[in-house]
């Protein structure tokens, strides 16, 4: 088991012939991810990754002919919202959008379509997800992982890698590591992913990587307290010393009833019984103190 991606994942890479698409498709395949198709409109009939992955013009063909059930998008921002909608229309169940700088109003219009179709979107502007030993989808370097039973969810990209590395170095393997993306509008929230981990028999402990701004961490803390009171969980908040001004504006703060500051988030997490690390490298020790053993 694991969540979102695994041995059974049949992946289509949207934008497979682009610079990023090609490079990361190769990395994913080397890791063991089953890539069944690529899509680049106008390049249907060609093949990618040294000839062993068929390229289609449309996602629909990737589904009907290639049998794809999961998509990863490396399409540039101007075309990425449409790429998401195409995946949704083709019946893809799990869609990862790696693309950054998508205008937020575009995402406002895309999200109801994703939800109406019952699809799950991770991102945009996210690093993807890896279930160590099974499959990786996105851009997280494969070498840093170790198989195990810790579920990790993060709003950051590279900071996620840092923590995964620290966990693996300490002998603490992961069931699945998920980066949900740092954009104002993302397809899946902390709570969505924590819900998947709750239902995963192979996940015993949780790590949450947050950052200043918004109130997603506060929401996750409250959810954890209610739904997973006994699961060991450690968190980290980036931006304790960041100068103000990179936070959301006042109007955003009013909606959430939160200042978005690191301290408010840390207080909310600790009040929910979640230990908060001061450094990413401290996380393995805190997990051990919560009773999690290396494995």
């Amino acid at each position, binding site marked *: 088991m694991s969540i979102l991606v695994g041995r059974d994942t049949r992946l289509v890479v949207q934008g497979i012939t682009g610079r990023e698409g090609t490079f990361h498709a190769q990395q994913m395949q080397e890791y063991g991810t089953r890539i069944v198709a690529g899509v680049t409109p106008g390049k249907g009939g060609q093949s990618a990754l040294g000839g062993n992955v068929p390229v289609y013009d449309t996602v629909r063909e990737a589904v009907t002919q290639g049998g794809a059930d999961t998509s990863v998008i490396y399409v540039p921002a101007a075309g990425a919202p449409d790429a998401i909608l195409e995946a949704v229309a083709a019946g893809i169940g799990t869609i990862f959008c790696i693309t950054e700088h998508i205008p937020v109003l*575009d995402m406002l219009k895309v999200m109801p379509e994703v939800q109406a179709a019952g699809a799950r979107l991770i991102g945009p502007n996210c690093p993807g997800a890896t279930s160590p030993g099974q499959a990786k989808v996105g851009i997280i370097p494969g070498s840093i992982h170790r198989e195990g039973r810790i579920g990790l969810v993060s709003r950051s990209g590279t900071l996620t890698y840092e923590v995964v590395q620290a966990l693996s170095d300490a002998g603490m393997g992961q069931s699945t590591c998920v980066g949900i993306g740092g954009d104002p509008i993302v397809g899946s929230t902390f709570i969505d992913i924590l819900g998947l981990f709750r239902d995963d028999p192979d996940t015993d402990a949780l790590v949450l990587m947050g950052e200043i701004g918004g109130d997603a961490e506060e929401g996750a803390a409250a959810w954890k307290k209610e739904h997973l009171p006994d699961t060991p969980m450690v968190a980290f908040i980036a931006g304790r010393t*960041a100068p103000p001004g990179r936070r959301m504006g006042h109007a955003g703060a009013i909606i959430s009833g939160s200042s978005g500051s690191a301290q408010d988030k840390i207080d909310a997490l600790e009040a929910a019984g979640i230990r908060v690390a001061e450094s990413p490298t401290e996380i393995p020790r805190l997990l051990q103190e919560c009773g999690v053993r290396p494995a």
Partner: protein
Amino acid sequence: MKIQEADAKSLLVAQGLPVPPWAVARTATDARAAAERLFSAGAHQVVIKAQVLVGGRGKAGGVKLAADAAAAEEVAAAILGMDIKGITVRKVLVAPAADIVHEYYLSAVLDRAARRVLYMGSAEGGVEIEQVAEERPEAITYLHAHPHLGLQDFQARELCFAMGLGGHLKDFLRIAQGLYATMIAYDADLVEVNPLALVRETGADGMTVERLQALDAKITLDDSALHRHPGLEDLRDLDEEDPVDIEARAEGLSFIRLEGDIGCMVNGAGLAMTTMDLVKRAGGQPANFLDIGGGARADRVAAAMRLILADTSVRAILVNIFGGIARGDEVARGLVEARRQQARSVPMVVRIVGTNADLAAEILSGIEGIETAGSLDDAVDRAVAASRAKLAET
């Protein structure tokens, strides 16, 4: 991107919102001339408002009334050059002072959690809405616009009646819909009118009428969408920006200058903030926040290094790159290039891990002035030590 009140008003006018006339002046003489025009058009008083991209102008003394042109010049002279929250006032807005019956609040803002545009309306406008939200939350009406249909008429009516503006239903509907149209037209993530005022006006026939007008406007634009609105980039107020910020943006870098002496170059905002947090925790002071972004190539890395070195207080540089979409070898090549061009000798601690880290290590091995580090904690400690050693030299 934040834009000035005067520019925000122009965008609202373009969407059909009622905004009283205004002029922008950079000198007291120009402010006087603008005031003279307004007085001869029938204004009884004018208001002079500092144009700065920070809140609390009124409290800081940046908004003043003037009863005649001479007073307008005097007031403008006092406001121009004033420092408001660290920003020097370089422009003022001159507008007729409205005869205000009542002040309301109306805004449309992106609600991240709900993934909708949120409308907020209140009969308690003209004051900081944060204060109203805290003290009397029931005084604010909230509702979400439909993601495809926008603010529907029935919603605008609900808002209108809740705000006690039933007597001005038609005008209010036009204004409320206009806020949404403004968001869509310019990819704004906030459109705020505070105050939306009911003002008393005397018509040509001598009869007084009450009308709704947007007396202030605040708009922030989505940086990711600026490329599809070519004219909007011109509204960026370069007067209020550090030249370094302008250069950073041109290079596609996210850069914030800070007070310390350890220059930081990191990929990813979360990791960049974490690196700064750890530098402080280890007793050092970061000189900047710098996120070189995803997929940074060698030339962008070299540009980032130039920005860091342009800050003369930098005594050591910490490079922390965890390759994912960014490739270690590209970053390493950029660093070597930057080192070659570098005019002054600043010790550099480099940690590159992740994608193509092995290639990066090959490229960096044996380069003078570059110290490599394995773990994040080790890199931070070395950078802090290097900055201290450099300080001891001087």
